């Protein structure tokens, strides 16, 4: 993937979208890798007792997808400095999730070339289930 440079970034531009379809297998892998064994993410009967029709995709897995969106775009010379997310909706295994971002601001501060982004996970109904924001430092040409 070609390196993105601060000079070429425009406020309002979309960054390349990632597509992810986490499955039950992904959730089990995530539980093992992350140490989060909360039953809500692998036991359907338990999920039903909490009022959900199925197990839920871990919010942190969605956040992991968002970090990948940022590192893919920032490239080898870019640095992800900050990221924040709010978990507002639910994602279920088998759903195709779109991981998206848009540049909201660019400026120079303390000798760094800073880009601010709006980021979010979009479910198949087009809802922004996990909105957030991020700050990245990019190289200059």
């Amino acid at each position, binding site marked *: 993937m070609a390196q993105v440079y601060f000079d070429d970034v425009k406020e309002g531009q979309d960054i390349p979208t990632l597509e*992810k379809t986490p499955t039950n297998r992904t959730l089990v892998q995530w539980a093992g890798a992350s*140490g989060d064994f909360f039953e809500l993410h692998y036991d359907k009967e338990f999920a039903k007792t909490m009022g959900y029709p199925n197990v839920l995709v871990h919010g*942190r897995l969605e956040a*992991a997808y968002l970090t990948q969106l940022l590192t893919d775009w920032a490239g080898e010379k870019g640095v*992800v400095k*900050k990221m924040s997310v709010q978990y507002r909706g639910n994602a279920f295994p088998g759903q195709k999730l779109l991981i998206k971002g848009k540049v909201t601001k660019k400026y120079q501060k303390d000798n760094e070339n800073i880009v601010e982004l709006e980021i979010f996970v979009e479910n198949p109904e087009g809802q922004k289930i996990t909105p957030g924001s991020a700050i990245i430092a990019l190289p200059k040409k």
Partner: protein
Amino acid sequence: MTTDSRKFAKTLDEVKTYLGKKREESMEIDGTVIRAYCECIGDPNPMWKDTAPPGLVTTAMISSGAMLIGVPLLYKRSVAGGADWEFFKPIKKGDTIHTSHEFSELQEKASDKGPRLLMVYKSSHKNQKGELVAISTNTIMNY
């Protein structure tokens, strides 16, 4: 068999007694840890050979330990509310990351659906040289 691994408190005061409680943990970041993370999320980027992706500290193995502080819940339903992370240095293969988690804040909120608690956990992550590599905040909503 369906299990429920959570602990419950009888009163809000009981939850409050956990405020300020901490837990420390350490993790060696070897190639297996980085590979397991990248394989799970589907990130084949060749950058992640000797450097760990930032998502590793923010979302994966390292920050889930906050739950091990064992703060009991007051209400039946609990979900992650939000989180933020600040990254100061990359984590390299071979690093040992020492994390300190703290149950730092408890907010009571009223909503249409009844009372809810916001439980805030703050974590700091240092490498074996004592350098701060990241800080993170996770909020759990209990209702």
